[in-house]
Every structure is written in C-alpha cells, then in structure tokens.
C-alpha cells in the first residue's frame, strides 16, 4: 500500500527564516505519530503544507501519492492550532457544515462524543470557553473516517480529564488504514499512545523512530529523550 504521506526534499522559506529545511519523510498507514519539537521548530508549517494552506518553496509533498488539492482534502482531517469555526455558529450548525462537505463524516459518532463531554449542540460557539471550543473542533475532526488525521496541539487548552478522553477517542477512532499525526510539546501526556515519533528542530527532522525501539534501546521515555535533545 502507498505511504499516506511522503515529503521529498521539502523546503519552506519565509523572507528571512527557514521554516523547513530539506525534509524527507515517509509516513505509513496505521500509525500514530508524534510530531515533537520546541515552539517555532516547524511543526505547524509542516502540517499546513500537508493541508495546502501553504505552498512549498521547493520540493514535494504527497498525500496518498497526490499533491495537496480537493482530492487529498477529502481524505485528510485537520485540526488547526486555532479556533477556525465562525463564532456565530451553533455547534449544530458546525455539525451540518461538516456533514455537507465531508462524505466520511459520521454524525452519530459526533453526537455520542458531544454527549459524553456534556456539550449541547444548541450552544453558540461565541459563548464557549476556548477549551470547550477546542473540544468541539476535535470532536468534529475525529468524527470523520479519514485516512490521515493532522492534529496540531489537540490537547493544549483542555483539562487533564478531558485530555484522557480525547486521547482515547483518538486511538479508538482511527482504523488500521489511517494514520494520525499529533503535533505537541506535551509529550508525557501523549507518549503512551504513540507508535512513532519525529523530533523536529529549526526546520530539520533530527529523529524519526519507533517509540518501542527507543524505549528498549535507550531505556528511557521519549519525554526524557526530548528533554536531553532539546536542552536549552
């Protein structure tokens, strides 16, 4: 089966900043991958390139063998690091929006998750706290049966109890043909769900390895390794 994501000598430069430097990366299906790095290391840039919100300066990015476009957006479910739903919408409006545009959206699953987190579809987004909005967005994104999930800081703003539920949702919701990329710096919280991890520093991918390999070889957690590698 074709890799779900492939980056070939991918570069993204801004006026006086190299955001991604010659990134070569292949992500297979059926994995949960942690995209880990300090602030400003290029995590969000990579995720935005996957979703076609930015254009590479050079190199290539392929999702299921195709360049970002309507075809790839159909199979990628993206959670940005900001609130992107119009605030005049009710939760129910956002649900019908997703239902209209994404054929893989499972409304039943979405309603179950909302209920589980005590969220009422009649609520207006404007009146929700930042953390609650993040929960709503994550539920919408995880209610799709996508091939690739790109979650940019999915647990940053929510309380630890909801964090556990969200992580469980992520692992239980994706199927064996799908992969999940989670960008975060809260490594300890997500470490237990990861199959692979990627360390990214100043736009360079420094490590891409299996979590189990590193644990058995180095005898330490990814969190500890991260603190060593990225020591200030």
């Amino acid at each position, binding site marked *: 089966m074709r890799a779900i994501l492939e980056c070939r000598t991918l570069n993204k430069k*801004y*006026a006086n900043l190299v955001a991604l430097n010659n990134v070569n990366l292949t992500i297979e299906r059926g994995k949960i991958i942690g995209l880990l790095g300090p602030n400003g290391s290029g995590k969000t840039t990579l995720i*935005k390139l996957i*979703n*076609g*919100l*930015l*254009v590479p300066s050079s190199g290539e990015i392929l999702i299921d063998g195709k360049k970002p476009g*309507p*075809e790839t*957006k*159909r199979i*990628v479910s*993206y959670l*940005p690091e*900001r*609130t*992107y*739903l*119009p605030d*005049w919408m009710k939760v129910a*409006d956002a649900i019908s*929006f997703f239902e*209209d*545009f*994404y054929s893989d959206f499972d409304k039943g699953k979405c309603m179950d998750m909302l209920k589980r987190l005590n969220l009422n579809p009649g609520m207006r987004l404007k009146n929700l706290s930042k953390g609650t909005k993040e929960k709503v967005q994550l539920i919408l994104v995880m209610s799709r049966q996508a091939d690739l999930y790109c979650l940019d800081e999915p647990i940053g703003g929510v309380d630890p109890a909801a964090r556990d539920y969200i992580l469980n949702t992520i692992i239980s919701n994706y199927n064996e043909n799908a992969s999940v990329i989670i960008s975060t710096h809260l490594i300890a919280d997500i470490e237990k769900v990861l199959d692979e991890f990627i360390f990214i520093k100043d736009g360079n991918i420094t490590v891409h390895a299996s979590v189990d390999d590193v644990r058995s070889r180095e005898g330490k957690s990814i969190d500890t390794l991260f603190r060593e590698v990225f020591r200030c």
Partner: protein
Amino acid sequence: MLGKLIKHEFKATTRLLLPIYLILIALALICKLVHSLDIFKGILSLIPATIKIVYVISIFASLVITVIFAVMRFYKNLVSDEGYLMFTLPVKASNLINSKLLVSVCWLLLNAALVFLTYLFVFPGQTKDIIKALLSIVETEFGSRSSFLITEFAIVMLISLVDTILLFYVSIAVGQLFNRHKIAFSAAAYIGIYSVYQFIAAIILLIISFINNDLMFNIASLSRIIFPFFIFFYLALAVVLYTATNYIFSKRLNLE
C-alpha cells in the same frame, strides 16, 4: 459542491443582511404612513421631513453596508482563521470564489430592487415622473435604438458591479501573499490595481476619440462606441481579476 457552498454562504450572510433590508422596508412604510397622514402643521412638519431624510439615508446606508459586508465576509472567511476551515474543504478555490461572488451579486441586486420598489411605493408620482422624463430623453435622442441602449447600459452596470467586487477580492488575495500587514498590502493593491485600469481605460478612450473625432460631441456614439467599449473593457477586466484571484488562492495560498 458549489451548490452547498452557496447554501452555506446564504446562511452566513442572511443573518446580517436581512435585518438591514427589513429596516429599509420598515422605514419606507413609516415614511409612507407619515406622509399620508396630513396632520403635521407648522413646526410639526419637521417630523415627516426628518423621516424622509432618514429613509433616504437608509437607502445609501444599505448599499454601502452590503458592499462592505461582502468585502469583510470574503476577508474574514477566507484569509483569517476561518480560512483554515474553508481552504481545507474538498473543493476547488474557484468554487469558493464563485460562491461568494454569486451570493454578493444576488444581495446587491436584491438591495437595488428593494430600493427601487420602496421608493416607487413611497413617492409613486415623483418616481414615475423621473422615469418618464428619462425615457423621453432617450427616446428623442436614440429613437428605435433606445431599447438597445438601455440593454447596453444594464449590461455595463452589471459587469462593473462584478468588477467592483472582484477588485476587492484580488486585492485581498494579493495582500495575503505577504507575511505581515496583510490588510495594509490589500489596501495598497486595491489602489494600485484601480489606478492602473483607470489609466488604461483613459488611454484607450483617448485613442478612440482621436480616430473618431466626434466621439465626445455626438451623443449617438454612446450606444455605438462608448457602451460597447465599456462592455468589452469591463468584461476583459473581470476575466483578468478573476483569473488572478483564482491563481493566487489555488497556487499561492499563504495562511498565517
């Protein structure tokens, strides 16, 4: 997918524009009512006069708000945080632009129709007189060609309306290419593009008037040269502006 985009575009815009148009209609009704009651004498005659002024202001306000709202909606929905939602939908950028353009033109036409109809309702005699006078001028000057002239004029107005909106769209598209000061660069792009096309139009008109000496003095040239020129020019401009907007959003998207 275009149909769904249009549906959601109407849903998002109705909630703001419908109240504006209802206010316009309400003011027209109040104006009519007050004018039909012949009870305001002396100083009290200020009341119908004031209400008439408020109604006329609301006509201009509604048109200005509709245009400003179309522009703000385009910016907010595509280039701010909401752009993350819209540009990750499995649709082509051209359909995002088409849905917004179509819906904006619909609202502007509805707004124009409401202005005309409410004015006709409030001041029926006056409005009919103005229309009659205009028609008789056209009739005497253009005779059998008058309906042709009116059609040409309507086409010019419609295309220039589309151009007005597209000029905002392309400016916003250009502005988002920059990593900072996106709004300032959008404004600069607007002024720049506007100046360039006004300049080009002026040059072409000048050349035509050199070739055809009586252009400016012969009113018949209006339907034979001036209107056809503007139809062609505005259409060409629309194609250029649309293509540029679509190119930038399809190939050069740069969401912060």
